[in-house]
C-alpha cells in the first residue's frame, strides 16, 4: 500500500469509528430510556398486587430489552474501537519512514481516546462498567470530533527531536495514563452527581433509572480510587522519568520549566493531592472527587490548551506546520 492509501485508510477508519461510536451512543441512550421505567424488582412487587400476567410480562421484556441494548451497545463500541485502531495504525504507516502514530496533536488525541475506549472495554467485565457506557462513548465521540475538525493535519514525518525511542515510551505511558485518568474522572463525576441527587431527595429515589444502575457511592469512590491509583504511577513514569530522560537527550536539559512540563507537574501535584485527600479526614469523598476532576482538567488543558495560549513551549507538536511555502501551494 502507498502512503497516500494508508492515509486515506486512516481517515476512513476514524470516520467509521465516529459513526459507529455514534450508533453505540444511540443504543445506549435507548437502553437508558428503557431503564427510566421502574426498575424490574419494583415492577415485580407492583405486579404481585395488580393484575398479573400481561403487565409483568411486559415489564420483563423491558428489562430484557435494556439488557439486550446494553450488549448491543457494547458490541458496537468494540467494532468502533476496531475501526479506531485502524485509523491509528494507518497514521503510522502513512508516514515515511513509518513511525509511531503520535507525532502531533491530532494523532495524540486519536491515540488518547483509543486508550480510553480500550481501558473501558478491558475493565468492563471486571468492574461491571455497563453504567458508564453512555458517558465513555460520549466523551470519546466528542473528543474525536474535536480532533477531526480542529486538530487534523496531513501526515508528516516526525521532527528530528521527536525521533527517539524515548518518545515511544514517554508518549505510550502518557497516553495510557491520560486514558486511565479520564475513566477515573468519569467515575468521580458520577460520584458527585449521585451524591447530589442523593442529598436532594433523601431516601431510595436514587435507585431509579440510570442512577439506579450506577454502583453505590462507596463503590464508585473505590473504583475511582483504583483507576487513579493505577494511572498515577504511570503518569509519574511518563512525566518524571521518561520525559526528563528524553528532554535531556534532545534539549540538554532534563527539566526546563517549559509550559508543557509545568502543566504536567501541576497535574502530578494535583493528583498527589487527590491521593492525600483520600487519606485526610474531612477531605474524603466529595472533596477528593473534586480534586480528581481538577487534576483531569489540568491534564486535558495541558494537552490541548497550552499549545494555543503559550508560544514558548519546546514540545514541538505544539508548533504549527513547518513552512509557508507559497511556491508549493
Amino acid at each position, binding site marked *: 500500500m502507498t502512503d497516500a492509501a494508508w492515509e486515506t485508510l486512516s481517515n476512513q477508519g476514524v470516520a467509521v469509528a465516529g459513526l459507529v461510536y455514534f450508533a453505540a451512543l444511540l443504543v445506549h441512550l435507548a437502553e437508558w430510556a428503557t431503564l427510566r421505567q421502574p426498575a424490574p424488582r419494583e415492577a415485580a412487587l407492583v405486579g404481585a398486587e395488580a393484575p398479573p400476567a400481561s403487565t409483568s410480562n411486559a415489564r420483563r421484556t423491558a428489562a430484557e430489552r435494556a439488557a439486550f441494548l446494553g450488549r448491543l451497545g457494547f458490541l458496537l463500541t468494540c467494532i468502533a474501537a476496531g475501526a479506531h485502531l485502524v485509523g491509528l495504525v494507518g497514521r503510522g504507516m502513512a*508516514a*515515511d519512514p513509518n513511525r509511531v502514530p503520535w507525532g502531533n496533536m491530532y494523532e495524540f488525541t486519536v491515540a488518547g481516546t483509543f486508550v480510553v475506549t480500550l481501558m473501558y472495554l478491558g475493565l468492563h467485565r471486571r468492574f461491571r462498567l455497563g453504567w458508564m457506557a453512555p458517558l465513555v462513548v460520549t466523551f470519546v465521540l466528542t473528543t474525536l470530533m474535536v480532533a477531526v475538525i480542529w486538530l487534523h493535519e496531513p*501526515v*508528516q*514525518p516526525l*521532527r*528530528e*527531536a521527536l*525521533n*527517539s525511542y*524515548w518518545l515511544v515510551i514517554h508518549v505510550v505511558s502518557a497516553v495510557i495514563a491520560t486514558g486511565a485518568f479520564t475513566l477515573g474522572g468519569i467515575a468521580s463525576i458520577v460520584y458527585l452527581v449521585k451524591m447530589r441527587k442523593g442529598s436532594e431527595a433523601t431516601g431510595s429515589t436514587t435507585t431509579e433509572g440510570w442512577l439506579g444502575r450506577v454502583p453505590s457511592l462507596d463503590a464508585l469512590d*473505590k473504583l475511582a*480510587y*483504583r483507576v487513579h*491509583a493505577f494511572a*498515577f*504511577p504511570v503518569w*509519574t*513514569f511518563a512525566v*518524571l*522519568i521518561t520525559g*526528563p*530522560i528524553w528532554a*535531556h*537527550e*534532545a*534539549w*540538554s*536539559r*532534563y*527539566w*526546563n*520549566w*517549559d509550559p508543557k512540563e*509545568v*502543566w504536567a*507537574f*501541576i497535574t502530578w*501535584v*494535583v493528583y*498527589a*493531592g487527590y*491521593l*492525600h*485527600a*483520600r*487519606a485526610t479526614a474531612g*477531605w474524603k469523598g466529595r472533596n477528593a472527587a473534586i480534586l480528581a476532576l481538577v487534576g483531569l482538567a489540568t491534564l486535558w488543558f495541558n494537552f490541548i490548551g*497550552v499549545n494555543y*495560549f*503559550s*508560544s*514558548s513551549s519546546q514540545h514541538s507538536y505544539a508548533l504549527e506546520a*513547518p*513552512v*509557508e*511555502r*507559497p*511556491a*508549493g501551494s
Partner: protein
Amino acid sequence: MVAPEGQREGRPVARGELTARELLRWTWRQVTSMRTALVLLLLLALAAIPGSVVPQSGVDALAVTRWKEEHPDLTPIYEKLDLFSVYDSIWFSAIYLLLVLSLVGCIIPRCLVYARALRAQPPAAPRNLSRLPEHTSYETSLPADEVLARARKVLGRRYRLRVSTGSTGSTGSTGESDAVSAERGYLREAGNLLFHLSVLVVLAGFAIGGLFGYQGGVILVQGSTFGNNLTQYDDFDPGGLFTPEQLDEFDFTVEDFEVEWLEEGSGAGTARGFVAGLSYREGDGPERSYDLKVNHPLSIGGTDVFLIGHGYAPVITIRDGEGNIAWTGPTVFLPQDSSFVSFGVVKAPPAEPEQIGLEGLLYPTFDLYQGDPVSVFPDARNPLVSLLVYSGDLGLDSGEAQSIYVLDKEDATLVTDEDGKPFRLDLSVGETIELPDGLGSVTFERVEPWVRVQISQSPGKEVALAGVVLALIGLCGSLFIRPRRVWVRARAVAGDGAGDTMAGGTTTVVEVAGLDRSGNGDLAEVLTDLVAALHDEKERP
C-alpha cells in the same frame, strides 16, 4: 524560637514557657499534619501556573525582553513579584521548602513508628469480633483446635501470625488460645515511606544540578574549532556555586555538517535528520570522531555536548575604496522561520575611507513568487543574499560590547543609488557588485553551514533519576499492597439441639473478622475466600 525568648526574659518558669512550648508543639503539629501537606501541595500547583503564562528568563530570555517592551507598565510590578523567574522566586521556594519541612516532620516519626511496628506482633484478636465492620461467622462440627490449626495454616502462607501467647500472657484474659491473629501488607507503609523519602532525594539531585551545573551555547561554522573555556561560549548560564575549574578539558572541530531533507510528500522541506561530524580530543588524548545528532549527545567526562540547531553563514568579502580586503569570512545569519530565510549583518570596520556595514537576508533557495523574493526550499540550493549597505561610523570604536547580530546605525548612513532609493545588493554565489560612491565592492563567495551546540554539565542528574525511580517503586508498593489484619476465633459451645450437629453434642462457632488498613481493599471478598478455604479443608479429610 519562641521558648528561648521566654527564657531570656528570665520569667519564672511556669505558665509563659508552658504556653510557648505548647504553641511550638501546636505549630509543629499543624505543619506536619496531613491537611497542611495537602494544602501546600495544592498551593504548589497553583504557584506553578504563572510561570507557564509569563515568559521565563531561564527558558526564553528573548521572549522576556519582548514581553517587557510590550508591557512597560506591568513590567516593574512583575519584576517585583519575580514573575520572570517564578521557579527561583522566594515565594515559590517558600512553598516547597515548607512542604519539605512538613515532609520531614511527617516522615521521621512515621519511620520510627514503622520500625517499631515491624518488630511488633500482630495485635491480639479483639474481644468482640462482631463489632468490626467486616465480619462473619459460621458453625462447624470440627473441634476448635482443629479449626484454628487450619486457619493458621491457611493464613500462614501470606500473613504474619501472632505467636501463640500462653506464656507471655500479656494480652489479658482472652489470650490467644482461642483465636488466630494475622496481619499482612507491612511493605505498604515501607513503600509509602520510601516514596516520600525519595522525593527528598529528587529535590537534592535537582538542587545539586541547579547549584553546580551550567549550560552554555555556541554557534560554530563548519570547519571551526571550539576549545572548552569560558571565553569561547556565546552564552553561559552557570549555577550559583559553579567554578570555572569544573570545566572539562577538551576541544572539538566541526568537520562537516549534513542535513537530509525530505524532497517530496507533505513533509517536503523538513529535515529527516542532521549530522555534524566532529573530531574531538579529551585533554591531551588522541583525536576521535563522533557523529553528533539530535537525541544523541556526545559525553566527554562530566560534560554533554548537544546539537540543537543549524543555519547558514554566507562567506562574504568586502573590499574598500582602496581595493584592500576589509573583511572576508563566514558570517552567521540567524534563521527567521523554518524556511531558513536568515537575517544577519556583516561589518567591515577597517574599510577606508569609511566603515562599511551590510544588513539583510539570505534566501537558501531563492525564487520570485508573484514578484516577492522567497525561499522555496530550506536547503542552500540557490542561495542569494539581499543586503542594504551602510557607511560611516558603525559605533565599534566606543569600546562597548556590541552584538554581532545588530548593526549600530546611529552614526551610519544608508547608501543610496542615483535616484536616492536605498541601494540594494542582490548577490548570488560568485557574484561581485561595486558599491556606489567608490565605497568598494562586495563579493558573495559561498555558503557554509553552522551548528548551534549546547554544552552543559548537569551534576546530580543521576541522583535525581535514582530518586524518581525509587519513588516510583515505593509508590507502587504504597498503592498496590493492601495491608490488613484478619482474625479467626473458634469456640466450642454446648450443642443446644441444633439439628446438624453430628457428634458429641458440641459445635464450634467460628468467627472471622478483618480490618482493612488502607481503606481501599475489598475485605468482604477476602473473608469469603478465607471461610471457603477453611471449609475446603474441612471437606477433604
